[in-house]
């Protein structure tokens, strides 16, 4: 039987226009209702709440933009923004660098590679709260295993999360330990799909390993790197569980990020109006950063 080309004229008439919409809109209705109830309504309600002075025990008073005005004059919020950005920059940079490096390592063939990969991604599979509790015990200045190990090699004890100066770098260390595997997996997926020919040509031309990485691997897996970066930025900006469990925002407010301040305002002080204003500003911040990063996809390295 010979194959015959199908022409547009052979296809059944496609419903279109007003009739098409009238017949099929109801199929989209359940999804639209879910989106409205679960996403749109809470957002609209949050916007409304941000315009009120609203304590859970009292009545809500309309205050217009007063909550936002207070927010921009609140030094505690200002410092929370600074800490959030400081934490995010480090909690993105370290996992990205180490994750890309690990992906390159794991893309080469060596004995027990599968076992090594499995072990490498184990931190990512653990629950952040459980991880936080374990790290908290390990960080204890007198009883923690980390200072014991330092003592074994003759180093003095370190304050870890128990000092205002070292708390954020220490939290970044936990984040790096947990999320480097995710970056590795994403980038490794990109590397696995790369053609071999450019590398063969580069070897014939006498390119070094670094040159092959810089001028072949990175440009070709760039979309994967950007994707991993965007995921990490969003994740780092909204980190809550690890910080909440390990430091609770302390010592003092030394690790109080926007998320921690938001939680404390809404659920510690029961100030829902001001908490909603923080949410909206925080959302705008995440949106801006994410859009800037996605624009990076169009920039070739």
């Amino acid at each position, binding site marked *: 039987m010979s194959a015959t080309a199908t022409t547009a004229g052979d296809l059944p008439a496609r419903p279109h226009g007003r009739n098409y919409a009238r017949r099929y809109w109801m199929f989209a209705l359940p999804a639209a209702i879910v989106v409205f109830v679960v996403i749109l309504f809470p957002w609209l309600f949050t916007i409304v709440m941000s315009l009120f002075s609203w304590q859970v025990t009292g009545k809500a008073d309309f205050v217009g933009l007063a909550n936002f005005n207070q927010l921009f004059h609140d030094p505690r919020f200002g410092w929370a923004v600074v800490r959030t950005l400081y934490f995010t920059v480090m909690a993105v940079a370290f996992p990205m660098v180490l994750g890309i490096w690990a992906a390159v390592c794991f893309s080469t063939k060596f004995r027990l590679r599968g076992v090594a990969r499995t072990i490498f991604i184990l931190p990512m599979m653990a629950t952040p709260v459980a991880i936080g509790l374990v790290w908290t015990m390990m960080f204890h200045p007198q009883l923690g295993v980390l200072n014991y190990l330092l003592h074994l090699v003759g180093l003095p004890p370190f304050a870890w999360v128990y000092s205002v100066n070292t708390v954020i770098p220490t939290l970044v260390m936990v984040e790096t330990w947990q999320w480097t595997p995710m970056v590795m997996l994403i980038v490794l997926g990109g590397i696995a799909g790369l053609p071999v020919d450019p590398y063969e040509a580069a070897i014939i031309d006498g390119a070094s390993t670094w040159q092959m990485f810089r001028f072949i691997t990175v440009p070709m897996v760039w979309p994967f790197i950007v994707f991993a970066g965007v995921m990490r930025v969003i994740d780092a900006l909204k980190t809550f569980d690890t910080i909440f469990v390990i430091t609770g925002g302390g010592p*003092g407010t030394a690790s109080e990020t926007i998320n921690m301040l938001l939680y404390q305002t809404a659920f510690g002080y029961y100030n829902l109006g001001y908490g909603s204003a923080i949410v909206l500003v925080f959302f705008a911040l995440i949106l801006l950063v994410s859009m800037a990063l996605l624009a990076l996809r169009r920039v070739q390295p």
Partner: protein
Amino acid sequence: MISRRTLLTATAATLAAPAIVSEVGATTAFDWKRHKGQTIVVSLTKSPRADNLQAHQKEFEALTGIKVISEQLPEQQQRPKMVMELAAGNPSFDVTHFSLHVSKRVVGAGKWLLDLRPYLADPKLTAPEFDYADFGAGAVTAITQPDGRIDSMPVETDVWLVYYNKKMLPKMPDTLDEMMQTAARLNDPKKNVYGFVGRGLKNANVPVWTSFLLGENQLTVTPDNKTLLTDTPEAIWAGQYYKDILSKYAPPGVVGFNWYECQNSFMQGNVGMWLDGVGFCPPLVDPKVSKIYDHVGVGLMPAGPKARHCAMFNDGIGIAAKSKVKDAAWLYVQWATGKQMALNLVNMGGGASPRVSTYTEPNLKPPTKEWLQTMLASLKIAEPGLPEIIPVTEFRDVFGIALTNMIGGADVASELKKATEEFKPVLAKSLQS
């Protein structure tokens, strides 16, 4: 000869007798089984008090035939969860255990918990052995809302005292000055030995400061709860004491210590004194977890320049007004705050009983005699450790941050001044609402 009518009457009377006897019995013996088959959900704050309730839960189920589903959550999670669920009007629990010094005014303002006064007044609903009059005056004051409502029953009274390592000091100092000197003498960081440990973590650290402030015979607010007394010379003296003893003689990293870290450090045997709640004794004297289990001393809070007081806090347990099984829940509350459970609490070392009769019980067997004696002496000098205001969490955060800054070297007077100015409008707003 017995007539047919007489026989029928006699038979009917005989058949009715059990019902009559049962009715008579109801007036003399309380019917704990009246809600058999019902299920109640209980939300507990993680603590020795909650451990006590869960350890004996099966006894309540056997007594009443009521099934209990209970869960313990750490206080940092349980407190907001309780308030948010009550405020939303559809709580997932029927009974809730909470810290009165944190949540009393919030739940009172919202009127989310059942007013228990009608229950207490009704002998059909309240067992005669419950004996409400047995609760101490301080506990009754603690559970009574400003408008007179009683929406919880007292579970425990927490008094603060000083645990000390008898290997390092044979006797607890009598005054705060002596305590500072003793801490200085014991302190030897090169040998990993420290004189004193107390909470440095923001929010949790405020009762340590207020404990010292009580030595100046002062609270943090005026009796009408309207004016802050947090930047007075007395408050500054207490802040300076807090700063000195924690920054000079406590283990490194104390700025991030809550009671859990303090307890662990103390149990390792390299800390001389630890100021905290009476309910933290059990692990200290447990050979399985404590290196100094047979050297734990329990001392009364030392006297300050003007007075000798210790900080006091209370736990309560109440019923959600929206609960569908209120009467069954009330049976649970009676059992949980009854004489036997109060005795169990003291015997396990989990805290002070709010009931007067507990201390004359023949079966009273506390973890150590010294612990009991110190606890009883502390109850006599106890004063509220935190102000009874709605925004108490914000109060603890604002002043807790100031205290952590002090440990880091900040000036006491300016930190307290700044914190007081920051909290003034919050307090004023809460009073308006």
